[in-house]
């Protein structure tokens, strides 16, 4: 039943549900196709013809997967919450930072005090990573957008950070120096770009996206995040001695790529039916 395997793998690759749910769907559809092909063989078709007919009758796998994804996603509040989480943290931190004012202090103060700015920012990658592990592409897209938004915001509010090198956070880890909030955000961006490369690779090679992304994510993003989290936890590490000006063009390209990749990933999960 090689045709079944091919069909089911294409279906599974196009699903955007939790791995557990994807496995259940795979199993259920396989059971259905096997029953259908048995019925067709009883009418006189050969096995190959029956398999082909059963697969054809079920529909184009990407379209079926899109419908199944929507059916399994539409009413799940956790997904919406996960997608919103990145933005919530960005809002919580930005609007309670002492230099910015306290527009939302009254409502978000219990969640995010000004002193917890760095700690809360570290929860952004945690939310994105949780989304990746759960197979939720939307969380990743939301995280990317949130990082982009926060970067633009911080750069507008703190012009002093504009001429910092993009690679500085990575260098700083190896020379053991301190980092600050803009370095954290830029590091997040690089990680997301790496995840985006994984996404493009998955699209180009027609392989399952989640496995690609998780691999790239763990290899690049998590390594970087893991390196800087202990530093971030040390409150007050603002000064970065020896920081040298870096090209603003790189920042723009990186920021733009995050938008493009985010849009591509989001379009990929939309229902085409």
């Amino acid at each position, binding site marked *: 039943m090689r045709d079944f395997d091919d069909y089911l793998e294409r279906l599974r690759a196009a699903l955007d549900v939790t791995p557990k749910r994807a496995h*259940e*769907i795979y*199993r*259920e*559809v*396989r*059971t*259905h196709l*096997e*029953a*259908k092909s048995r019925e067709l063989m009883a009418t006189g078709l050969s096995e190959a013809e029956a398999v082909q007919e059963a697969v054809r*009758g*079920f*529909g184009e796998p990407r*379209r*079926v997967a899109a*419908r*199944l994804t*929507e*059916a*399994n996603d*539409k*009413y*799940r509040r956790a997904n919406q919450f996960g997608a919103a989480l990145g933005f919530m943290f960005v809002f919580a931190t930005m609007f309670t930072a002492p230099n910015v004012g306290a527009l939302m202090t009254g409502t978000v103060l219990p969640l995010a005090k000004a002193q917890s700015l760095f700690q809360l920012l570290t929860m952004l990658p945690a939310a994105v990573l949780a989304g990746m592990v759960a197979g939720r592409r939307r969380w990743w897209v939301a995280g990317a957008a949130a990082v982009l938004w926060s970067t633009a915001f911080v750069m507008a509010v703190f012009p002093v950070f504009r001429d910092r090198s993009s690679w500085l956070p990575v260098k700083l880890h190896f020379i053991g120096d301190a980092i600050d909030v803009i370095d954290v955000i830029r590091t997040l961006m690089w990680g997301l770009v790496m995840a985006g490369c994984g996404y493009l690779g998955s699209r180009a090679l027609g392989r399952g996206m989640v496995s690609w992304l998780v691999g790239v994510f763990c290899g690049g993003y998590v390594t970087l995040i893991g390196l800087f989290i202990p530093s971030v936890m040390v409150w007050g590490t603002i000064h970065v001695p020896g920081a040298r000006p870096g090209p603003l063009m790189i920042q723009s390209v990186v920021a733009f790529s995050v938008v493009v990749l985010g849009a591509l990933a989001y379009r990929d999960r939309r229902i085409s039916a």
Partner: protein
Amino acid sequence: MQVDTQLVKGTVRLLVLRLLDREPMYGYQMIAHLRDRSEGYFSLGEGALYPLLHELEEQGFVRAQWQEQQGRPSRRYYYLTAKGKRELARRMQGWKGFTKAVDLVLEASHA
């Protein structure tokens, strides 16, 4: 015969709930029942049934459970929940009101 697809779409949900009200079923069985009992009128697309079932499951109208079969692959049976029964009753009432209204209009047109 020309079939109004929008009307069929809205009706299939009601029919699936009604089928499950009688007995738990698996997907393939539901398709066969719908086709046979409607004398081929409801020849539901297979790729369309499972999204519908999963949607009903997400909404809590049905629950699903794998059942072992002797010498055959397990099947995923769907059961109507208490919430699903209420939804079925609501849809049945709506359907009866709809058909009654249509009949009234059609009969009036003949008169």
